[in-house]
């Protein structure tokens, strides 16, 4: 990661546009993954949320990266519902707050802000690594941001795949006990998609 690269509001706008695109493309698969161990709505819920984020960013364009992420978070909380609404909403809101009012941020500032966001997600959801949740993709993904955006996307993708043999200990899948084993977690999967979208925005797409 170039130490001197700075990311402006436009970069974050590209990230959210890429996120909305990938959620649109993958909504059916996310819902399919949510079917055997959840309630078959993860894709449609995120689609509703990121579509709302697109129109919110268009109708009241934020001036700074921090404001953009906070508006994204607030919009997700107000439109997604379920557990993923508050969790993803908290991730973006807290990261946005952490960025403050700077017009441009460094890659290192962005990494540190996302780490604060992920920590807030862990606190809100009370989950730990290995519980078969979005944290299993977010934690390795954000850690790998220190290397590159591509590395972060790949680590998150690996983290999502690694949820297959896990037994769920949080959320609706936990009701299934051992029967949750053998399925990829939909939340970890969508987290990996969002970090993939970040790599796309940085021109490090796969």
């Amino acid at each position, binding site marked *: 990661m170039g130490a001197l690269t700075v990311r402006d509001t436009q970069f974050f706008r590209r990230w959210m546009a890429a996120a909305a695109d990938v959620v649109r493309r993958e909504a059916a698969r996310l*819902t*399919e993954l949510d079917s055997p161990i959840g*309630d078959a709505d993860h894709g449609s819920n995120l689609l509703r949320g990121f579509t709302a984020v697109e129109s919110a960013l268009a109708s009241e364009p934020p001036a700074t990266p921090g404001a953009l992420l906070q508006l994204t978070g607030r919009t997700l909380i107000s439109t997604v519902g*379920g557990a993923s609404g508050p969790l993803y909403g908290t991730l973006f809101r807290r990261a946005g707050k952490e960025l403050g009012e700077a017009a441009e941020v460094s890659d290192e500032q962005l990494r540190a802000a996302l780490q604060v966001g992920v920590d807030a997600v862990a606190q809100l959801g009370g989950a730990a690594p290995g519980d078969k949740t979005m944290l299993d993709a977010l934690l390795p993904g954000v850690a790998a941001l220190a290397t590159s955006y591509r590395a972060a996307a790949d680590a998150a993708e690996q983290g999502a795949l690694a949820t297959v043999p896990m037994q769920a200990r949080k959320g609706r899948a936990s*009701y*299934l*006990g051992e029967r949750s084993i053998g399925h990829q977690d939909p939340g970890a999967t969508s987290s990996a998609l969002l970090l993939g979208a970040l790599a796309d925005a940085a021109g490090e797409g796969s």
Partner: protein
Amino acid sequence: MLINSPETVVADALRGMAAAHPDLDVDVERRVVARRDARDSGRVGLVSGGGSGHEPLHAGFVGHGMLTAACPGEVFTSPVPDQMVRAAAAAHGGQGVLFVVKNYTGDVMNFEMAAELAGEDGIQVEQVLVNDDVAVTDSLYTAGRRGTGATLFVEKIAGAAAEEGRPLDQVAALARKVNECSRSFGVALSACTTPAKGSPTFELPDGELELGIGIHGEPGRERRAMMTAKEIAEVSLGPVLEELADIGPVDAPVLLLVNGMGATPLLELYGFHGEVARLLADRGVTVARALVGNYVTSLDMAGCSITLCRADEELVRLWDAPVQTAALRWGR
């Protein structure tokens, strides 16, 4: 499916509710159903909400003697905090508001955020968590027990107490007591089909059933070969009675809900209820009141659940109090 499109099912249903029940204040756009006489009523407001797909829960229970307002989310998805805050504002009669929250990760988080926001708006908010389903082990390794049939008991009894003009702390304490005295167990004969997915949420072949299911189309704890109604009554009632023994004398009176999951005909449900009633009589359990029907459903799932609530005289009296809602009405 009898729908226009998966995206509009909830709004379409709310428009239908508004047309069928002009006595209710139905805000289709903001997704809040409320009594019209709540403001300045001097009564505690009772608010609940959750994903759609469990009808008549919750909106069908808005009215005299039960909920003051309800906020339906998308199908099987918790409503968002904005809706809950609007519902709290609509239900606030000057004496604060009680949130009745079914114990699901999303519902708990969204109601928690809403309680904070409503508090900032100057509305005193208490919350009661409903978690009556004995099929889920309550441990560090699960999200805790699910809220199912006992939600109806909590909403009816707390609603009656609020209607009597009792203060928020008393209404909240009663609601918690009802939850603590209630246990449920559910059985599915078929999975359900969410509008978003359009196909069954899990595969359940003919001739098999799932024991210990929830109300969101998730599979249960165990799959068995098909049984008779009598056998299903035995395997369902066992774990409920076992747990109920921990919270009071075996022969204390109970409220009984024999609940259909949505696609099981009342003919079958009453037959099943007959078996449950006989088993309870055999074990010396007095059924103070029974309710049979589709009240806490899971879309088009076939199956049933049993909820027992150990009820003292006060709870039975509040259960009998007049109620006038879309789905439950008596005594008025």
